[in-house]
């Protein structure tokens, strides 16, 4: 098997794992584990009151924006690296 076939197989496995998560839970809203942890805290210690609030809480739309920004910053660096590698190779420096 060629190397690219292994890569494709790996990516396929990633897709299967993520898609099966959705298929196995058709009615789930996939809330975050942070909130799930908060719910357990409510069961373990119902009287607990958080003593400090987030300095600022973005709305759902803004949250999407900032998560995208976070991913974009990282992806930009990785993309730059991959691109510069390709150039090196083409120039025979790699």
């Amino acid at each position, binding site marked *: 098997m060629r*190397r690219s076939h*292994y*890569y494709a197989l*790996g*990516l396929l*496995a*990633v897709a299967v*794992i*993520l898609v*099966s*998560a*959705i298929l*196995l*839970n058709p009615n*789930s809203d*996939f*809330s*975050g*584990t*942070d909130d*799930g*942890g*908060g*719910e*357990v*805290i409510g*069961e*373990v*210690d119902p009287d*607990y009151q*958080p*003593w*400090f*609030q*987030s*300095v*600022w*809480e*973005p709305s759902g739309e803004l*949250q999407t924006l*900032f*998560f*995208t*920004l*976070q*991913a974009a*910053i*990282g*992806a*930009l*660096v*990785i993309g730059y*690296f991959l691109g510069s*590698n390709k150039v090196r*190779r083409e120039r025979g420096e*790699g």
Partner: protein
Amino acid sequence: MHVMEGFLSWEWALFWTLVSAPFVVYGFLSIRKILQDDPAQRTMLALSGAFIFVMSSFKLPSVTGSSSHPTGTGFSTMFFGVGVTSVMSLIVLIFQALLLAHGGFTTMGANVFSMGVAGPFVAYLAFKAMTKGGVRTPIKVFITVFLAGMVTYITTAVQLALAYGLTNGSFADSLISFLAVFAVTQIPLGIVEGILFTIFIDYLERARPDLTEKAFPRRVKDEA
């Protein structure tokens, strides 16, 4: 893995901050030293931070019906160890606490400990042991990355069980409840993260052996 803002008593907040602080300070000094002495490593530092940014921005669905973040810390752990990874984690956790209300400043110490110290620490030990034992690169990368994320979430569960279960005597019960939320959800996501990094390291070893040499020394027979 984020302990939410205000959800740890100030005693625990202080405790985890004090435990994490030495690692972060050591990490800052290491980064400064790397940038001064070995500019070639700058690329790898940038990639380490970039992967933590990208991976921890994803909220992936898990078979448990909830979703969670990969940590992306395995890459940084393999190349730079715990100190540097704790600094990278601190940076992304500040970003998320400030702009996303994920985690918080009172729980920063606890979150840096789980994501930047405990997970990378266990993963790094495993990485070193597997290197010594001659484990093949793809398996080694997969296990290291999986552990870095997994142990992070187990640590969060332990932190919450300590903070909430210890006082009313339900430590063991609450630990199981917290593990059910954090750790079980993370298993498939850890596998996903492990596969992605295994592919990237394989690519990197071929494309830029000069950069991977440090963590993945080439075997002599490969060079002959």
